[in-house]
């Protein structure tokens, strides 16, 4: 349960932040660094924020490279690479003491800071010089299309800043530029070396935050959360997808547009989110496993249809890759602010399930979970993800395919079909065998109107009560069967000073903060919720019973999860909220753990 906290000399834990003008190579440089670190056997956790515009604005790409499991984007940045001044102004804070700033001296000079080592790199000038050197060897057209190797100069500088050998980078350049000819390769190798030399000349006695290559012992994937969600949905047996483009969920549709046909499935780009969910509901009603993915504004549009799916008992999965809000809000940034919408966003009341994926690795399993739950209980399932885990790339162990288990909806048997078949038969757990078009003896009309067991419209108060109870009984069944399974326990197993309850992408961040507190001798337990609705009340109450104080960190303004816990359990918790688009740093959670601990122990310090 405890994460690896090796402190041997060969342990790597480096946080690098790259900032620059969007569309001008910052992301490419980040991707190449990630590739280098991955080849060195390190675990990667990236975090990116994009401007909402296609071109222009500042992009930030943070990379944490670590030997051993990487749970969070890290706390303070050791190396900041600022390719423009705006990026430096926006993201130049939160640096560790003694951190290194590598700045593009062609465009700006930072004000001096005694806590920082500044290294200048005239990256554009150096890159142009390298291009000049090979100009005579390359034909006119190719020369025009050949960019100056700005990123390669940056790569050489960065590799040197982390004390890494240049050989892997050279091999990489050979691979990438090989087909463009020897001169282009030479230009890039020379750019790499000039970047390295330029840094080496300025480092002096400064100690570098080194990375240490380690052997790759097991296969790993380098994926984003959205990609893992998509692969998970294919593993779950997805057959139909309809969606409408919306940041930061679009990548799921783009991925499935390429892959779904090979799995025998069908994808439609709908005219809006309402049509997207309507199509999914139609496909699901006809027997397909169906899913859509959207973000908060799209989920709002789907509210009416979610109730149709709840009322008419249609299995369908809606992924909400949450983003900052409200309204257009912070469309390229992270939030957990759609929890209320996911849980309460409905007219009147109908059953639904809300679950959250917690990490890039977990996104695969939660996508399967979502489809399985939808099928088992014939309800809409909202899967909450968020921008931070959806768009970041991480190294993760590949999922063990043999661990996948698939649930299919309950269909009527031959005996059940016929004149006495009732689509909405009232059963002990509320789940009724669902006939599909084509089944002889199963004909019924799906309807959102209150209906009797047969499916015919029926308006008596007795029937309304009976059928609502039938539908909501399925939620009791969810808790009974899955309530204990769909949480994760971290930290101490017994009595705890502080108990942390969280959901979604906070899992790794809270685990890291918890570990730090445990190292300091503070007993912290961490209950991570995967199932949010129906709420696992008993599990939370049992957890609360062994904790002196409860803390709920979440990326919302008002404390939506804390409120949801209060409503379900009567427990009043300490709140740690933040909804500014940027995920918590482990140190922010740790600081609150520490101050709470000091409060309950009367200010006694452990250090």
């Amino acid at each position, binding site marked *: 349960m405890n994460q690896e906290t090796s402190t041997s000399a060969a342990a790597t834990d480096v946080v690098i932040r790259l900032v620059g003008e969007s569309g001008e190579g910052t992301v490419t440089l980040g991707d190449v660094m990630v590739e280098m670190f991955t080849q060195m056997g390190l675990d990667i956790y990236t975090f990116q924020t994009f401007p909402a515009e296609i071109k222009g604005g500042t992009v930030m790409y943070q990379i944490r490279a670590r030997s051993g499991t990487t749970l969070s984007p890290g706390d303070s940045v050791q190396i900041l690479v600022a390719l423009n001044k705006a990026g430096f102004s926006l993201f130049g804070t939160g640096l560790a003491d003694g951190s290194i700033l590598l700045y593009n001296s062609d465009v700006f000079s930072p004000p001096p800071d005694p806590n920082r080592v500044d290294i200048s790199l005239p990256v554009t000038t150096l890159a142009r010089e390298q291009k000049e050197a090979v100009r005579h060897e390359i034909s006119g057209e190719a020369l025009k299309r050949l960019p100056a190797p700005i990123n390669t100069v940056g790569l050489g500088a960065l590799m040197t800043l982390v004390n890494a050998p240049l050989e892997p980078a050279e091999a990489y350049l050979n691979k990438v530029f090989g087909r463009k000819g020897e001169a282009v390769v030479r230009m890039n190798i020379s750019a790499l070396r000039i970047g390295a030399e330029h840094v080496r000349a300025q480092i002096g006695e400064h100690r570098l935050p080194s990375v240490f290559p380690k052997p790759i012992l097991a296969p790993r994937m380098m994926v984003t959360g959205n990609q893992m969600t998509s692969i998970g949905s294919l593993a779950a047996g997805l057959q139909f997808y309809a969606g409408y483009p919306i940041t930061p969920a679009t990548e799921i549709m783009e991925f499935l547009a390429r892959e779904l046909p090979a799995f025998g499935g069908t994808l439609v780009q709908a005219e809006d989110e309402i049509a997207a969910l309507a199509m999914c509901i139609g496909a699901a009603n006809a027997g397909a496993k169906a899913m859509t993915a959207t973000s908060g504004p799209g989920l709002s549009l789907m509210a009416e249809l979610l109730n149709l799916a709840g009322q008419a008992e249609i299995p369908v999965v809606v992924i909400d890759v949450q983003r900052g809000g409200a309204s257009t809000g912070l469309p390229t940034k992270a939030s957990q602010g759609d929890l209320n919408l996911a849980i309460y966003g409905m007219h009147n009341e109908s059953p639904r399930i809300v679950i959250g994926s917690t990490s890039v690795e977990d996104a695969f399993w939660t996508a399967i979970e979502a489809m399985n739950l939808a099928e088992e209980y014939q309800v809409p399932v909202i899967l909450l993800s968020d921008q931070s885990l959806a768009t970041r790339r991480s190294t993760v162990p590949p999922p063990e395919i043999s661990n996948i288990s698939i649930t299919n909806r309950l269909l009527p048997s031959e005996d059940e079909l016929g004149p006495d078949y009732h689509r909405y038969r009232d059963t002990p757990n509320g789940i009724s065998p669902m006939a599909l078009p*084509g089944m002889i003896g199963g004909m019924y009309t799906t*309807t959102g109107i209150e209906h009797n067991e047969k499916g015919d419209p029926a308006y008596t108060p007795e029937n309304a009560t009976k059928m609502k109870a039938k539908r909501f009984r399925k939620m009791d069944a969810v808790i009974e069967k899955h309530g204990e399974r769909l949480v994760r326990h971290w930290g101490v197993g017994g009595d705890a000073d502080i108990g942390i309850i969280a959901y979604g992408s906070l899992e790794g961040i809270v685990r890291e903060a918890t570990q730090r507190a445990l190292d300091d001798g503070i007993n912290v337990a961490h209950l991570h919720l995967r199932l949010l609705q129906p709420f696992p009340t008993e599990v939370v109450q049992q957890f609360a019973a062994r904790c002196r104080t409860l803390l709920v960190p979440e990326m919302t303004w008002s404390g939506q999860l804390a409120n949801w816990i209060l409503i379900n359990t009567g427990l009043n918790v300490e709140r740690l909220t933040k909804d500014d688009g940027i995920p918590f740093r482990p140190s922010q959670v740790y600081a609150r753990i520490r101050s709470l601990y000091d409060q309950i122990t009367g200010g006694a310090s452990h250090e």
Partner: protein
Amino acid sequence: MSNLAVSADKALTPRDYKSDLAPIWCPGCGDFGVLSAMFKAMSVCNLDPVKTVIISGIGCSSRLPGFVATYGFHGVHGRGLPIATGIKCARPDLNVIVVGGDGDGYSIGGGHLPHIARRNPDITYLVMNNNTYGLTKGQVSPTSMVPLASMEARIDPKRWKTTPYGSTEDPINPVALAVAMDCSFVARGFSYKPNQLADLLVEAMRHRGFSLVDVFSPCPTFNQDQTDEFYKRTTYDIPMDHDPTDRLKAFELASNMESYPLGILYQRPDKASILDEQEALRTRFQGHGSLSELISRFS
């Protein structure tokens, strides 16, 4: 629907498509005529009830699926078309028919019409157009022809409850819109001409692609202007020599707002369908889907 799923065992009569639910419509409602024309058309096509789904939105006419002995889907206001698209794309083997009213199809659901016309799936869409909102008891609909009134002279508020002073809003012309959208089959019928309507529905169901049949289906309770008498007076049959593949002629016919041509206005049999594309993709990539390959691609 080029490849209709038909009943294998026997020829079904119109009665065989009647469910045991009695329609809830007012006496004299045009929708009764539409329903019987539908039974007849389904019988002519000998549709397999078990492999037929009738989808609707919300409104008086949207209650129709319950009255037909097939699978049905009484959905959400305005969303019959996308629900049907999902059903048909997931199960191309099914006969898919959508029904609804003018408010459902041309107002709240109007945004779906151009897109289903673009996608052109084998779906038949039957709109029972009564030029009013009946289920909410008489407000203007997008096809209402509300008289203009001066600010001084109120018109009968019992008839047009949300436009008691008249309206300057032109009614939309659904068939002209559909021709403009290049909807691959556009026809208009009249519920008081059930035999013609049944014929139109048969043609629509047999059409390969998306077909729209707009039907004047008068509301005797909330619309005393566009009555059966009104439409008997103002409609006429499209001349035999009309070539429905001539889009400009079709648009000219459809644009007539003085009197209303009944019959097939426009048909484009060769328009591509999303269903063919999807089928081609599945065939092309069939058997290529491998989870372990997908995972290793990221390793």
